[in-house]
C-alpha cells in the first residue's frame, strides 16, 4: 500500500459530553500508537489527532461530524482504531458491534 494514499472516513461524536479532555486523550493515545499521520477536521479546522492541544480546539459537541484522514504505512489500523473509539462513544473496553 502506498503511503501517499489518504484514507478518509466520516466519524460522528455520539457521546454526550462531546470531545472533552478524556475522549481527546483517548484519540491522541490511539493515534500516537501509529506511524501514520492522523488528521481530524471539522470544516476548515484541521487537528493533528496525536495532539491533545489541537483536538481540544475542534470543540466538537455531541452530534458533530468530523472528517478523519489517515496516511502512512499503518493507516488502515489507525483508521479502524480511531473510528472504533468514536463508535463506542469513548467507552472502554469497546463493545463489539
Amino acid at each position: 500500500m502506498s503511503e501517499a494514499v489518504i484514507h478518509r472516513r466520516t466519524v460522528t461524536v455520539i457521546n454526550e459530553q462531546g470531545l472533552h479532555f478524556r475522549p481527546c486523550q483517548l484519540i491522541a493515545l490511539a493515534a500516537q500508537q501509529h506511524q501514520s499521520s492522523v488528521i481530524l477536521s471539522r470544516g476548515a479546522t484541521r487537528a493533528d489527532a496525536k495532539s491533545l492541544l489541537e483536538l481540544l480546539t475542534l470543540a466538537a459537541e455531541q452530534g458533530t461530524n468530523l472528517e478523519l484522514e489517515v496516511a502512512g504505512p499503518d493507516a488502515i489500523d489507525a483508521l479502524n482504531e480511531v473510528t472504533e473509539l468514536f463508535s463506542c462513544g469513548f467507552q472502554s473496553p469497546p463493545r463489539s458491534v
Partner: protein
Amino acid sequence: MQIKRGIAVSPGVAIGPAMVLGSENFRIPHRYLSASAVGFELNRFHTALDAVCREISLNEKLARERLGEQYAAIFSAHLMLVRDPQLIEQVETRIQQKQSPEYAVSQVLGQYAKQLQNLGGHYLAERSVDIFDLEKRILRHLLGERREELGNLTQPVLVLASNLTPSETANLDRKFVLGFATEVGGHTSHTAILAGAMEIPAVVGIGKFLSDVAGSETIIIDGSHGVVIIDPDEETLVKYRDSEERFRSHERRLKSLSKLPCETQDGVAISLLGNIEFPQEAGPCKEKGAAGIGLYRTEFLYLESNREPTEEDHYQAYCQVLKAFPNQPVTIRTLDLGSDKMPGALRAKYPESVNPALSVRSIRLSLQHLQLFKTQLRAALRAAEFGDLRIMFPLISTLLEYRQAKMVLSDVVEDLEEQGIPFRRDVPIGMMVEVPSAAIMAEEFAQEVGFFSLGTNDLIQYTLAVDRADQAVANLYRSGDPSILRMIRNVVNAARKHNIPVSVCGQMSSDAVFLPLLIGMGIRQFSVTPHAIPELKEVIRNLTISKAEKIAARAETLEVARDVENYLGGELRRLCPDLMQMD
C-alpha cells in the same frame, strides 16, 4: 547597537556575553543570539519538559493514592499536554528561528489557550486555564534554572535581570559575574549598595529593556556612567576596552594608597569608616582601608527570612563584624525598616501605607514593638564586650522620641544586670540626623546625645520633598542644595558647641565632589561605601584644611544647587586631576 541609560551605582566597565534572568512574573527574553546556541537552547527546553513531567507524575501518583483513579486521570491528561507532539514541534521550530525557549513556549501555548477561550463554552474556557498552568510550570523551570545557574557559572557573564534581591547580589560569583544591570532599583537600594561593596560594575533602574536583549549577546555595562550598550559596534567596543583597562590601572593605583595614612597635607587626620549591611562585607571593607564601621545596617537580619531574628542571630552577626575590627569603632544602627519593607512577622499588621516615607518606620517601628527592639539592644550590649561597639537610633525626629529610645535601653540594661548576663555599660549612644526637625533642633539634641551621624539620603529626601527612586522627580534630588548645606552647618555648629562627635554617613559623603566642602565645614569623620575609600583618601591627601575651609565658605554663599555642584566639581578637578580623568 542599542544604548540604555540607568543609574550608575557601582563604577567600572564590564564587557561580555549577556545572561538574561527572568523575574517572578515571567518577563522573558524574546530571542537569543548565536546560531551555535540552538542545541543548547533546545536542550534547555527538553530539560524543562522532563522536569515538569516528573512533577506531574508525582502529583498523579499522590492523587491516585489519596483520591482515587478518576482524579489521577486529570494529571495523566496534563502529562499528555506536556508531551504533546504539536507543542514540541512548534516550540522547536521557533527555537531554531532563534526565539528563546521561554518566549516560544509562551507564544505556542498562548495561542492554543486563546483559541480555546474564543471557541466559547464554559468547558473549553476552563481548559485554557489548564494550558496557562502548564505554561507557567514550564516557564518556572526554564527561568528557575537560569536563576540557579547563577550559583554554578563556569564562564564570565554580565547578568541582566528585572531585579536582583540583596541576597542574590551578595552571592554573585565575583569570578564569573563581570557586571550586572537591572530594570528596577535606585541609588540607595540594597542591591546597589552591595554591588558597590563587591566592586561589580552595575547599573540599575534602567526601566524595561530585557525584551530587547538576546541571551549571549555582547553587552557593555558602564557602571561609572550608568550606561548599558547592547550589541555594540566595533568602534564602541574598542573605546570601552580601552577605558576598562584604564579603570583597572586606576584601581590598582588607588589600592596602593590603602596603607598610607588618611590625613590632609597639613597633617590633620580624617577618619574614613565603612558602611556595611552584611557581616561578610566587614573583611573586604577593612582591606579597603576603613578605620572602622560607621554605619552597620542591620536590616538584612530581618529581611532574610520570614521569622523574626533571635537575640542569638543578632549577637552572632555583630560579633562577626567586631572580629574584623577588634580595636576600631563599629556603629550599629538599630532597625531601619518601614511600611514599604516590613519584617516578616509584622507585614500583616501594617497594611500598605499611602506614604511609606512618612509612616511607621525605623525608630517609630521599634518603639511600637518593644520586644523586637529590646532583642536587638540586648544583643548589641552583649556583643559590645568584644570591641568598640556603638549604637545609634535612626530617624529620630523629636527629643521625646530619643528619650523614649534611651528609656528602653535602660530597661534592657536593668534586665541584663538582673539576669547576671555579661555586657558593656559604657556603650556610646547616638542618633542619625536625617529628619529636618532634628537638624533644626540640633542644639537641643547635642546636649543629650553621645554623637551625631548625618544621614544625608533621608535628610535630602525630607528637606527637598523628593524621592530619589522616583524617576519622575529624581533630577530634583540635589545633595548640593543650599538648604542641605545650611542644615549640615547647623548640626556641625551644635556638635562643636557641645563637644560631641559628628560624622556623615549618607551617600553624599561617598561622593568625592562633596568631600572638601564637608571637611571645610568642620567634619572629620565620614562613613562611606567601602569601595569609595581609596578615592576619598586620595582627595584628602591632596587637600589642606585652609583650602577646604575656603571651598566651604565660597560654596555656602551660592544660591542654587547647580552652582554649588559645578563649583565643587571644578575645585575637585583642580585638586585631583587624575581622579577626574576617569569620568
